[in-house]
């Protein structure tokens, strides 16, 4: 029974809870047991069994009293440890947030909580969400449940690697992630799950530890497209406390999953066929094209000519914003403090000890590109190229409804690989970063296995605030791909 409960989708669990086949407490216990059994996956920084069982019991009580329950009511979810959670340690996987217990709840996690979702814990991530491997976490790397391969543990991707590993390893039915340059979609691809980054402005950023404010966006990580649609519905919505949150209605995303994509125009950008891309990635992409065509869609070649400059643009814009956002970690108001003789010395000691190597690198790059004499050459230039990248998409969407690309240039790599220099690691996000720069919705759908037997995802990108079409196309892609492989290590246990 227990293992059956952890294999459900949200939609199935919703039905089972409604018909009384099991209670939220039973469902939650099954997941807490799975988490305990998979401790060495290191997917969680903090597990919250007391909160989970309390919320599960409250959900069961609501249901027994005949209250109309939302789709998320009683559903166990994991929360990336980048969301501030009231009364629960929030670390951003950084030493500098040692002991930080927020007195408030992020809007996205509050919306899910208010919809009845049951938080089972806070998931591991790259420090301050800066990374594509989960290796930069102060709390140690996460192990991908699809590993080990050839005797080596695999990364789950990043930065939402703990969230992806938890969902793939059957430790929670779903998880929330954040995506600044691919941090939901790339780990979803590496772990064989669905990851959706909504349109910038769809979900409130209030209460999320900020990395790059013009790029950050929260989204759902689930095992099915339907689950992502259900969960996003509970996360999205205008929030007056986030001035970039869009005052638009939240549609019924689940209702968009009609399965009918006849006549849908799907763009195929030739610029995403990059040098050095593994042949199997291209093969899977071609399969995706054929699947969508067989389902009645029309594929069209589109050109996104500035794609090749997206990564360099990102690695100016994101560190610049990060260097500004991370200025708040000064040892005065929260987190780590390392003493110094003077105020300046205390700042320097605290930040020198509190930030890991990758975060330090990015803050320094950001400081450099924003400093007097370099601002125009780097930051202003990057903002202009960003405008051109967004314009490419805008033009493409004059003729197509969605765009199909690979999610990542490879399958999951081993922990310790791609560490030779930072740029090698940055290349992981080559297909996902442009979407963030343009603020568009994107989803990764598990579509096949690599020659090594590891999952690979395909990405669908849509027009701003047209997640419905993205979900509809993703549903058709999921149906055609019929991806039913599971990590052989079962519930993340090793």
């Amino acid at each position, binding site marked *: 029974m227990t293992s059956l409960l952890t294999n459900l989708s949200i939609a199935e669990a919703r039905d089972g809870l409604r018909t009384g086949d099991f209670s939220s407490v039973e469902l939650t216990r099954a997941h807490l047991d799975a988490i305990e059994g998979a401790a060495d996956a290191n997917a969680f920084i903090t597990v919250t069994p007391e909160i989970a069982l309390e919320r599960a019991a409250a959900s069961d009580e609501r249901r027994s009293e005949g209250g109309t329950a939302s789709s998320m009511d009683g559903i166990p979810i994991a929360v990336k440890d980048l969301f501030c959670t009231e009364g629960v340690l929030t670390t951003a996987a950084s030493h500098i947030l040692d002991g930080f217990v927020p007195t408030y709840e992020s809007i996205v996690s509050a919306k899910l909580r208010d919809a009845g979702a049951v938080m089972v814990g806070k998931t591991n991530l790259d420090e301050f969400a800066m990374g594509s491997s989960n290796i930069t976490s102060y709390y140690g790397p996460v192990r991908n449940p699809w590993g080990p391969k050839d005797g080596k543990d695999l990364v789950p991707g990043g930065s939402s690697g703990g969230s992806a590993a938890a969902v793939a390893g059957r430790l929670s039915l779903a998880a929330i992630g954040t995506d600044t340059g691919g941090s939901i979609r790339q780990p979803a691809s590496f772990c064989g799950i669905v990851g959706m980054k909504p349109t910038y402005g769809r979900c409130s950023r209030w209460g999320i530890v900020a990395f790059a404010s013009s790029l950050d966006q929260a989204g759902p990580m689930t095992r099915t497209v339907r689950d992502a649609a259900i969960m996003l519905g509970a996360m999205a919505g205008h929030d007056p406390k986030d001035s970039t949150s869009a005052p638009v209605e939240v549609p019924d995303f689940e209702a968009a999953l009609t399965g009918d994509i006849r006549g849908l125009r799907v763009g195929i950008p030739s610029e995403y066929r990059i040098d050095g891309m593994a042949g199997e990635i291209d093969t899977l992409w071609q399969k995706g094209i054929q699947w969508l065509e067989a389902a009645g869609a029309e594929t069209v070649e589109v050109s996104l000519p500035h794609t090749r400059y997206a990564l360099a643009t990102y690695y100016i814009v994101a560190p610049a914003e990060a260097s500004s956002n991370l200025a708040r970690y000064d040892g005065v108001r929260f987190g780590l403090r390392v003493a110094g003789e003077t105020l300046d010395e205390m700042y320097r000691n605290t930040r*020198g000890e509190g930030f890991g190597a990758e975060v330090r690198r990015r803050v*320094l790059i950001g400081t450099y590109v924003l400093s007097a004499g370099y601002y125009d050459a780097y930051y202003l230039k990057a903002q202009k190229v960003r405008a051109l990248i967004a314009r490419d998409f805008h033009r493409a969407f004059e003729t197509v409804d969605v765009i199909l690309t690979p999610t990542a240039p490879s399958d999951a790599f081993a922990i310790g690989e791609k560490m030779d220099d930072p740029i090698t690691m940055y290349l992981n996000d080559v297909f996902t970063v442009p979407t963030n720069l343009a603020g568009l919705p994107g989803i990764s759908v598990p579509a096949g296995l690599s020659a090594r037997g590891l999952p690979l995802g395909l990405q669908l990108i849509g027009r701003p605030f047209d997640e419905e079409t993205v979900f509809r196309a993703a549903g058709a892609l999921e149906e055609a791909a019929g991806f039913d492989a599971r990590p052989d290590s079962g519930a993340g246990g090793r």
Partner: protein
Amino acid sequence: MDTKTVKDIAFLARIRVADDQLDSLAGELSAIIGWVEQLAEVYTEGVEPMTSVVEMALPRRDDEVTDGRCREDVLANAPDGTDDFYTVPKVVE
């Protein structure tokens, strides 16, 4: 980027970097800066810099107090709080 530049930036960013790390850090940062400099080849004459992806005016609200009176919450996480204050090393001689 030479070690002096790294030292200057690290000072601006208020991050202490040990002297024996300056060399390797200068190498890493130079590689990244050298890589992003490829943007110089993009023709951007007359292109407006993109500062926001959301095509909307900054929302405004009435100038009213809507929050506050939560001193305990604000001070709850102070690493070295004393009474109702944050404390820092002496800044006035």
